[in-house]
């Protein structure tokens, strides 16, 4: 009986020794894996920090680029406004010049007609008084129109 017990105890001791050895190897393997994973985590963390820094820099560059695009769009719009305003001013100047030409022509016609009328009046005996009066009236009308046009032009230029 004691022999059986002794054999059992030896068997149990042998099993415990094997289990202890296996658990030691198991723990060593885990520790080794843990070290490897820790190193991998450290590398990945470093890479993540680098990528994050690059992302921050890229975002800052993107913000700068979009702000610059907005500024350029604004500058282009302002230049477009100035171009349109200049074109409108040129159109205005052209209309004023054309009007000034018309006024100058009308005033010249008025002056010429008045000179012609003076000539007729200096030799009034040679002309029918009714014709002279009608001509004088026409000259007055022509000069009134020329003066009105000149007044309008001066008012326009004064604005």
């Amino acid at each position, binding site marked *: 009986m004691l022999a059986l017990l002794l054999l059992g105890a030896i068997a149990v001791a042998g099993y415990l020794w094997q289990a202890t050895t296996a658990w030691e190897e198991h723990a060593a393997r885990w520790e080794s894996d843990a070290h490897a994973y820790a190193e991998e985590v450290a590398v990945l963390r470093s890479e993540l920090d680098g990528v994050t820094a690059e*992302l921050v820099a890229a975002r800052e560059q993107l913000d700068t680029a979009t702000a610059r*695009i907005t500024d350029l*769009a604004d500058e282009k719009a302002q230049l477009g406004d100035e171009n349109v305003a200049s074109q409108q001013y040129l159109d205005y100047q052209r209309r004023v010049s054309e009007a000034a030409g018309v006024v100058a022509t009308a005033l010249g016609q008025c002056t010429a007609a008045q000179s012609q009328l003076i000539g007729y009046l200096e030799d009034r005996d040679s002309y029918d008084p009714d014709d002279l009066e009608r001509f004088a009236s026409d000259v007055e009308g022509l000069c009134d129109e020329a003066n009105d046009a000149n007044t309008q032009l001066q008012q326009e230029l004064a604005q």
Partner: protein
Amino acid sequence: MRSAGWRQAVAATAAGLLLGGCAALPEMPPAVPEDIVPTLAAPSLSAEGSDQLSPDGFDAVQRMAVRIRNVGCDALSTGSGFAVDEHTLITNRHVVADSSALQVSTYDGRDLDVSAASTAALADLAVVRTEDPLPSFPRLADDDPEQGDEVTVVGYPAGGRLTVTAGSVIGTTTDPLHENLGEVLVTDAPVEPGSSGSAALDEAGDVIGVVYAKTTDGRSLLVPQSTLRGMLDDASAFTTLEPC
């Protein structure tokens, strides 16, 4: 006899202890796995705001806004507008009035050709159609905003650079300018001349109104989206704009 009984008892006890002890022996360790899957989620790079971004870095709020140049027969003025579909934008009637030509440009400075424009009689609203596609367009909100709701205005104040301002809805009032039928919205979002036609957006980015005026105390007046929606649903509400 007593000795034999004692031995049997000891043997039975020893056998019991042996069997019981075997059950308490530690098991052999399992195999260490070759690959370990972490239970924690992997860290991710922040995607803050990326859902709103386009490939060129501008968000949808900026991309839908347009600058409108009204080339009049004797004058020049500017205003703002916003897209409601790929070829249609909304602005104010007074922004496009008395024009010989309308020139539309986008957030990134691109010029878009205008094909037609029409104005509403009962509200300070106008519709402008473009030949070229508009970059982005929001949706109209389902309901008008409530007092206190946040509002964002995007446009070109004073004809300057694209600007986004924020405020909140103060309430409603009858139109002091008598340009609009029904009530208009009052907000404290800052606007300037040139902001007319700007879209006013809610927190979700949906259009709640169209800026059309500024009060003497610095508040902004909006045509509410309900009025805009009603006008857009009624084809007869808009008449073609004839050049001056």
